């Protein structure tokens, strides 16, 4: 083994100590930066794959027995609302949707529903009490339509502009401020 002169060893040890502390700090900072992403974040806050792309086809029989085709509503701004009668927050947001359609319908807003994994009887009675329109809700008993739209859960609402492109997605119940911020700018004045 090569002998190391004493004073050089002392100086080298100091240098090693400083290096060690510097290395430790860097590793610590890197570990903190990586692991703290996601601390305090809402796990449902995931981006939709559909925003900015043409809306998927939406065609099917409605709660009233007729048929509905989203493509027929091209030229209108459409809120596609995924809901179910057994879902509490969906029940709470229905009045808001009905009111929005009444207020902004003249400016080109339409509301279309996807009634997913639901019982038809309960759904129809809920719409009757809240003033919703059963001819505007597509029935989706197995949930295939919801999967087609990349739906995470109920309630969920997609904003489709007049050209049929998805412009936004809200996970959870709608609020009037969301409508003001996202929907109103797309409507005709």
């Amino acid at each position, binding site marked *: *083994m090569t002998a190391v002169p004493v004073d050089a*060893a002392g100086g*080298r*040890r100091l240098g*090693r*100590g400083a*290096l*060690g*502390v510097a*290395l*430790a*700090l860097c*590793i*610590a900072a890197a*570990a*903190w*930066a*990586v*692991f*703290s*992403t*996601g*601390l*305090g974040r809402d*796990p449902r806050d*995931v*981006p939709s794959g559909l925003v900015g792309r043409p809306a998927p086809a939406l065609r099917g029989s409605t709660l009233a027995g007729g048929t509905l085709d989203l493509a027929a509503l091209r030229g209108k701004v459409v809120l596609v609302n995924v809901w179910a009668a057994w879902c509490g927050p969906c029940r709470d947001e229905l009045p808001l949707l009905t009111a929005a359609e009444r207020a902004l319908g003249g400016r080109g807003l339409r509301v279309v529903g996807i009634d997913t994994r639901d019982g038809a009887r309960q759904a129809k009675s809920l719409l009757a009490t809240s003033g919703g329109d059963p001819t505007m809700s597509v029935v989706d008993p197995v949930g295939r339509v919801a999967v087609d739209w990349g739906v995470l859960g109920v309630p969920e609402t997609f904003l489709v502009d007049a050209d049929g492109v998805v412009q936004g997605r809200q996970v959870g119940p709608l609020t009037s401020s969301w409508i003001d911020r996202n929907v109103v700018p797309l409507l005709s004045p």
Partner: protein
Amino acid sequence: MTAHLGATALAAGLVAALLALWSWVAAARGGDARTARRVTWLMLAAAAGACAALEWALLRHDFGVRFVADNGGRDVPVYYTVTSLWSALEGSLLLWLLVLSSYAVLLARRAPARAPHLHAPAMAVVSAVGAAFFAVALFAGNAFGRVTPVPSDGPGPNPLLQHHPAMGVHPPLLYVGFLGMLVPFAYAAAALVTGDTSSAWITAARRWTLVGWSALSAGIVLGAWWAYAVLGWGGYWGWDPVENASLLPWLTATALLHSTMVQTRRPTLRLWNLSLAGATFVLVLIGTFLTRSGVVASVHSFTQSPVGPALLAIVVAALGGFTALLVWRSDRLGADVGIGAPVSRGTALLANNLVLLALAFTVLLGTVYPLLAEALSGARLSVGAPYFDRMAPPLGLALLLLMALAPVVHWDGDTAPAVARRLALPVAVGLATVAVLGVAGRAGVGAVLACGLGAVVVTGIVADLAGRLRVARRSGLGWIAATSKALGGRRRVGGLLAHVGIALAGVAIAASSSWTVANEQQLRVGDSISAAGVHARLVDIQRRRTGTGMSTRAVLETPRGRLTAALTFFPKRGVLLSSPAIASRPSGDYYATVVQVADDGRSARVRFAVDPLVPELWLAGALVAAGGVLAGWPVRRRRPPVPPVTIPAQRELVVVR
């Protein structure tokens, strides 16, 4: 009242841990260890007091305490009320503290015989970790917070955690395993701080590492069994982040157990072993953090809380501190001698380390990658079972191969032809196994290879034992004495048992992953479902409303008797619990679950599977744990014979006469 007692106990624990740290540092500088030992007992008393306080609050249904309000319930059976202590975040921290303090007290009792100078510094490290966790439990975890107005009842623990008595065993066992890894960490840090470059720290920590390793092995296998038999999604390992968190320290601890065998024979791999000891406990801390912070989505993870950042701080402190210590002191180590000849046991053990660490790296990367990708590029990704199922098996096969090779290679250099000759019989058996399985129609190259390699390992062990037995008999010993000589002592037998267990586990895992046949079908009463030629007929569908839930049972008639699978829905918590029905035989399990029930209750969607060799997996887990315990079992040290005392007077008398 109870809440105040509990919070006081936690505060007392923090003070005791800090005092213990102070006292052990003083003892390391030449002071008396007795004070430090007493203060360590105080730490245990405080942890036990806090646990007792929370258990008391749970058992008395004191819903004014926040933890009880969130996790207690009047209609929960007593056993599950007791286990609900560790069913949620804040209480689990208290159990963690109890196990940590128990280790501290047991370690404090006696300094290790061959390394007494490392004892006090190691105890100081243990006390520091204890203080950190007491601080987290006291300030960030809010087990004893008050709730007003006091609710009249609570929701009870998650129904998934009230379903089986094993809930009382699995988390404590895992914690014993995790905290066992604190011992090599503490002794490694002590060796670095005192500048001791020998393998004394390894000898001092060895038994404790084995205790922790055995407990961790048992805990992991028990967790897999729980997922299979109680949770009922059909498998036993989902590469869930919390499962990975328990696997990572096990992998590095296994590597540590093997590479320290090299260092005890010759002064090499010293920096490597110190780093491994540090990495193992840091992985335990990272796992604790991942489980409790909610940063990675997992079915097991506790809810988000301020405990998350606090635990991250502990991880970062431990990682940074140990790294600094390593770099600062690594010059003391000097040069390592070589590992040995290219073909030698040392090389084989180093290869074992390489494979184990590559596997650990892959699992860690996959688990943490969603965080990493988001931190560096903002992309949201998920990494799940398909990724790990692709990356892990080749490394597992490499590990089995090394397990077959390494015990046969001599320590002091060997030649390839000599090794080949020793392996001839085991390899022949392995090739025959591969041939038979492949020709018999078993699909999957990996699975067939795994069975072949497992056969090589077991045959090698048996052949080696037989050879030693023959030598011992030839030297004239009776059967019992010869067998005991051939087995070679507890360390050897323990290691062999653990190897047999791992080989069996490898075969069982390969068989059950590749050759499981499952079928899912909508059945009405009287219909049949079949898998792998086994028919199961649905004979009854029963619906029942229990106190807290609605359950539907499907009764299936199979060649092994009646199986009743149930699906229970707990509306208060929105939890769906699927209870599988399992019929076990040595060849495999019949596994039935109810996936869905039609609204009219007249038909049910049933999944029926035939899972080969799953019971062998549980047996393998038991063998591995038993092997570890046996290897670490203390040997009664025979006292050296006392030399005769010569009394000068007698000699004079003789001379005079």
